[in-house]
């Protein structure tokens, strides 16, 4: 029986599941395992019954078998009856290329055992083929897969979208029984996931029978939404899906550790010394430690310092995505073989690669989201019933507060909600091209297919047609449509592919990860120091100082695909920090920290309670060590004495002067993504209001506006700046001419196939051929308006994916019910310090092109005049 809607699953008895198994499989299973694991109890029975299922469970819980057992059973049954045909029965898709070979191994092993068993019993089985196909698969193997399709086919989302247009191989994908999508949590929130969801619907269209969808995910919330994302819609109705939520079957033990008692009263050298000491102690006290940092550069730094401190007896290695594949595999092997005492990683070990025995996970600095914290900590205690042990080592005061709240939320298992991107038009462009290669379509049937993918359920026909027109070149003002990738007949309501080159163009340009051309960085002595992204190199100006691999360099000149630099020590970088991919704090967690601030304020302002009581309260309710609790209480008391504590009920804005400018720190603790949006709008409005240039700096806890001297904002001014009305309009205007707009526009232009990164095998960088992103943007706006799909998607991506428009507005609405407090103070308060020391981001408004060239011009003029004077003086002598 097929169930409708999204429903919570249930655990089945071992006997119920066993009764469905083929005798061989049953015997094999019983000989190997004592019982089914929780995810298996939820999933296998449902899969047998043909129900879609989403399994959310930690690693090491027998997830793979939970997903595959029904498929294996089916294949064994067919093989024993000699009914196995040359086609794909089970398709497995994982975003992790590295995982694919692991999965093959994990399947080959049980199959080999079952075959051994069969042989002993004299049962003849046809061979079952397993094939892996990714971008790395060799031509020879690809051809073999086309001739003899594997019964279990393991691939990546990108490769799947290519196979779909392959004339031969797509034929063997027509009656898939099981589709397994692994690591959904890693893709649901980004465009790779959107891309995959459309591929799955395209795959669904060519199915001749029922295709059961099985999704695997780590800890994620809300599961209902992820389930919808997995199964999509059929004729406008949600497909059914069972949710197997076994995410919390694994016990966890998390604690915050502060390396020093008071971050304000220690020098940065002593803090970092104690930090490494703390890490070293943790490593010594456990067998194998996995340390997570938030950036790749931090990973290198930590490894370097720990090696220095611990010496040869404690083998330590780094593992991150910038390292070559071979190095990473080597580290993974050493880890599995127990040869390492410690591995330091950024995000690369977060996902499901089998990493063997880890007894302690250390998070250095806040992981910024509860889900990520649980996922990372879940890497320890690999076996299901072992306790996962995690220690969060904090790096400053704000981090301490954040992690205190975070661990508490994690222990109470309150997850933050994920956000699935809504109808990205650039991804849609790629799929329309792919679909056009498959066949001729009517607009309506294509729209129906696209709407069955969850992210596109609300796509309007107008939006769809505007994308078709763009791809057909109709937006152009002439009759000849030479740019068109597809033809579009609006009268007949049909479209299809155009030109023979479309297939190779699709093959070479499909995918959503913007791949950057690497530019070599070379010193004046000719030494290679590393690589930077082309985009980064392109915006460098002579004299710029930037950080690469922990060292500081000055940019001198560019030469072809190289840039020439000199090393400079101790100089402040002039290039923005947003290039380092720091993780943003989730909005949900941010709100909980706001509430925590409120809680602290009530305690500190209660006359009955003293310092000790507050410390006791934190120790008791937040499971803190005494020193950490004291540090928090001191931090809040100092803020309370000096200014006010911003809380969930009070929005605090602090004003002070610095170096001739008026600084305003807005303590809007809503996470960097929402703060980005709010700060740009507020900065834009302040510039308009006071007719001056405004600089902004943003972090998770708030933002800073810097106005020229004497440009004071009154309370009424500030209230006006924070109004939610016209927010989007002002944000669009504030984004004009910013780096983020250029950068995102380039990515979207490539994803929409407007500018091809790879044209008929020639990989060339079009942008580097002097094409001007600013002019392109301006001319598109002028000729076609902001609704042009490429432009529309650029703004959507910035506002919804990169920033958090929804929650920015949500917060401004909340403000209406909050107290707005302005504190004029002599210098930055304790809470404002971290925001204050940030570098400023793009300049908002007023600072226009004219002014910049003028100021340089004036500088030069002065210099020339000065020289003339010197010459005069010289003559006079």
């Amino acid at each position, binding site marked *: 029986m097929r169930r409708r809607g999204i429903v919570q699953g249930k655990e089945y008895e071992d006997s119920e599941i066993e009764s469905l198994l083929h005798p061989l499989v049953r015997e094999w299973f019983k000989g190997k395992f004592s019982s089914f694991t929780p995810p298996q109890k939820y999933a296998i029975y449902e899969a047998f019954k043909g129900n879609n299922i989403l399994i959310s469970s930690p690693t090491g819980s027998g997830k793979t078998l939970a997903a595959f057992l029904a498929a294996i059973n089916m294949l064994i049954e067919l093989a024993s009856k000699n009914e196995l045909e040359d086609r794909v029965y089970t398709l497995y898709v994982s975003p992790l290329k590295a995982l694919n070979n692991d999965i093959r191994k994990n399947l080959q092993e049980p199959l080999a055992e079952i075959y051994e068993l069969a042989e002993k019993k004299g049962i003849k089985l046809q061979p079952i083929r397993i094939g892996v196909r990714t971008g790395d698969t060799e031509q020879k193997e690809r051809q073999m897969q086309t001739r003899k399709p594997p019964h279990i086919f393991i691939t990546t989302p990108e490769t799947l979208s290519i196979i779909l247009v392959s004339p031969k191989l797509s034929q063997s994908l027509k009656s898939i029984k099981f589709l397994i999508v692994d690591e959904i949590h890693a893709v649901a929130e980004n465009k790779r996931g959107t891309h995959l969801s459309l591929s799955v619907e395209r795959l669904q269209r060519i199915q001749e029978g029922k295709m059961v969808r099985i999704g695997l995910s780590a800890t994620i919330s809300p599961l209902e939404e992820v389930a919808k994302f997995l199964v999509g819609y059929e004729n406008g109705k949600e497909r059914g899906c069972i949710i197997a939520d076994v995410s919390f079957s694994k016990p966890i033990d998390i604690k915050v550790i502060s390396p020093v008692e008071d971050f304000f009263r220690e020098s940065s050298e002593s803090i970092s010394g104690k930090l490494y000491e703390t890490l070293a102690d943790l490593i010594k006290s456990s067998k194998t430690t996995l340390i997570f940092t938030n950036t790749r550069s931090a990973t290198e730094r930590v490894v370097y310092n720990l090696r220095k401190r611990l010496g040869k007896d404690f083998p330590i290695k780094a593992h991150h995505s910038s390292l070559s594949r071979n190095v990473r595999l080597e580290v993974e092997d050493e880890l599995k073989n127990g040869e390492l005492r410690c591995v330091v990683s950024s995000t690369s070990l977060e996902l499901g690669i089998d990493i063997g025995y880890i007894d302690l996970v250390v998070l250095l600095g806040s992981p910024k989201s509860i889900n990520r914290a649980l996922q990372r900590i879940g890497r320890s205690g690999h076996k299901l019933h072992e306790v996962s042990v995690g220690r969060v080592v904090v790096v400053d005061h704000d981090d301490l507060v954040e992690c205190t709240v975070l661990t508490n939320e994690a222990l109470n298992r309150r997850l933050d909600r994920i956000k699935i991107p809504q109808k990205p038009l650039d991804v849609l462009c790629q799929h329309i091209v792919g679909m056009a290669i498959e066949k001729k379509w009517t607009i309506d049937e294509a729209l129906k297919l696209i709407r069955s993918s969850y992210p596109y359920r609300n796509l309007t026909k107008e939006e769809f047609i505007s994308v078709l027109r763009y791809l057909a070149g109709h937006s152009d003002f002439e009759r*000849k449509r030479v740019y068109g990738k597809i033809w579009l007949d609006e009268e007949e309501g049909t479209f299809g592919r155009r030109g023979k080159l479309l297939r190779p163009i699709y093959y070479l340009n499909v995918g959503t990860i913007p791949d950057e051309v690497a530019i070599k960085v070379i010193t004046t002595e000719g030494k290679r120091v590393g690589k930077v992204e082309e985009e980064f190199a392109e915006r460098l100006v002579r004299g710029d100082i930037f950080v690469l691999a922990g060292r500081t360099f000055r940019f001198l000149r560019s030469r072809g695909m190289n840039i020439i630099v000199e090393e400079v020590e101790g100089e402040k970088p002039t290039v923005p920090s947003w290039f380092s991919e720091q993780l943003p704090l989730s909005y949900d967690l941010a709100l909980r920290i706001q509430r925590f601030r409120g809680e602290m304020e009530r305690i500190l302002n209660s006359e009955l309670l003293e310092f000790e009581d507050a410390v006791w309260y934190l120790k008791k309710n937040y499971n803190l060590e005494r020193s950490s609790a004291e540090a928090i209480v001191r931090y809040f008391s100092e803020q309370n004495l000096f200014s006010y504590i911003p809380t969930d009920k009070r929005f605090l804005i602090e004003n002070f002067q610095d170096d001739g400018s008026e600084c305003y720190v807005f303590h809007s603790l809503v996470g960097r993504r929402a703060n980005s949006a709010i700060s740009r709008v507020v900065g834009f409005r302040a510039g308009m209001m006071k007719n001056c240039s405004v600089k902004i700096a943003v972090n998770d806890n708030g933002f800073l506006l810097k106005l020229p001297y004497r440009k004071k904002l009154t309370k009424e001014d500030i209230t006006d700046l924070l109004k939610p009305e016209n927010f989007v309009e002002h944000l669009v205007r504030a984004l004009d001419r910013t780096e983020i707009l250029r950068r995102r526009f380039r990515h979207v232009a490539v994803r929409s196939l407007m500018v091809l990164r790879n044209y008929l095998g020639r990989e060339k960088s079009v942008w580097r051929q002097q094409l001007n992103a600013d002019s392109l943007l301006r001319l598109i706006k002028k000729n076609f308006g902001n609704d042009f799909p490429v432009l529309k998607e650029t703004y959507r991506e910035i506002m919804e994916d990169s920033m958090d428009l929804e929650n920015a507005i949500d917060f401004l609405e909340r403000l209406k019910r909050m107290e707005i407090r302005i504190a004029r103070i002599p210098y930055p308060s304790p809470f404002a310090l971290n925001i204050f020391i940030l570098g400023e981001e793009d300049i908002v408004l007023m600072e226009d092109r004219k002014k910049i060239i003028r100021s340089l011009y004036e500088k030069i003029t002065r210099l020339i005049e000065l020289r003339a004077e010197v010459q005069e003086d010289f003559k006079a002598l």
Partner: protein
Amino acid sequence: MIPLIAEVARIGNLMMIPGKAVVIEDIAIISDLHLGIEQSTPGSVPRLQIREIVEAVERIFDAYGIKTLIVNGDMKHEFSQNMPYEWDDVRYFVENVLELGSLRVVRGNHDNYLAAILSRYDIELEKTIEIGEWTICHGYEMIEAERVIIGHEHPSIRIRSGYASYTYPCFLRAKSMEGKNEQKPNEVIVLPAFSPMISGSDVISTFSFLSPILNSFSADEIEVYAIEDRVYRMGNLKELRNIV
């Protein structure tokens, strides 16, 4: 003293104007239109620049009483063939200019197939054009002449302000300090790219030029004139590289 700031920069009767053209009496010289560049970009960039280019030319004719326009090379973009849109764009351009005055075209390195389109308007593709003491050529090969005006280089300067960087197209003026030399011109004016889609190459951070003519000068022989609302004389390139 020469006024440093002015709407235009003058060298004798020659003016460098903010409209990215050099004007000598009633003649305007522009270069590097790269018509059809949208189509030569692999992908599907729609046609964007033709109308704006024609409007800009119209403004120059109006503002400076121009009778003749000289396109100093690279009128269109694609080297190897005439793309369908290039026909349209070149025709649209030529027909509009001919309504304003006369048009002369210097051959650029991209203009291999341009003659076929121009022949119907009886416009010759010229290797060089002499205007008074100036020789106008595209600049992709060495020339024997005293004072020349070239294109080809797409010069611009990039300046940082805070965390943003800004690019300005510019004119260059190179003047030999070593006196007369038979092997190379004595004075060179370089035009910026007229195409709004080309941001140009930053002469501050790129140390060699495309044009062999320009390459025969050292940085302290080259003066930079940046274009924004006016033409700004930014001093010589060597110093500019030190200051920025």
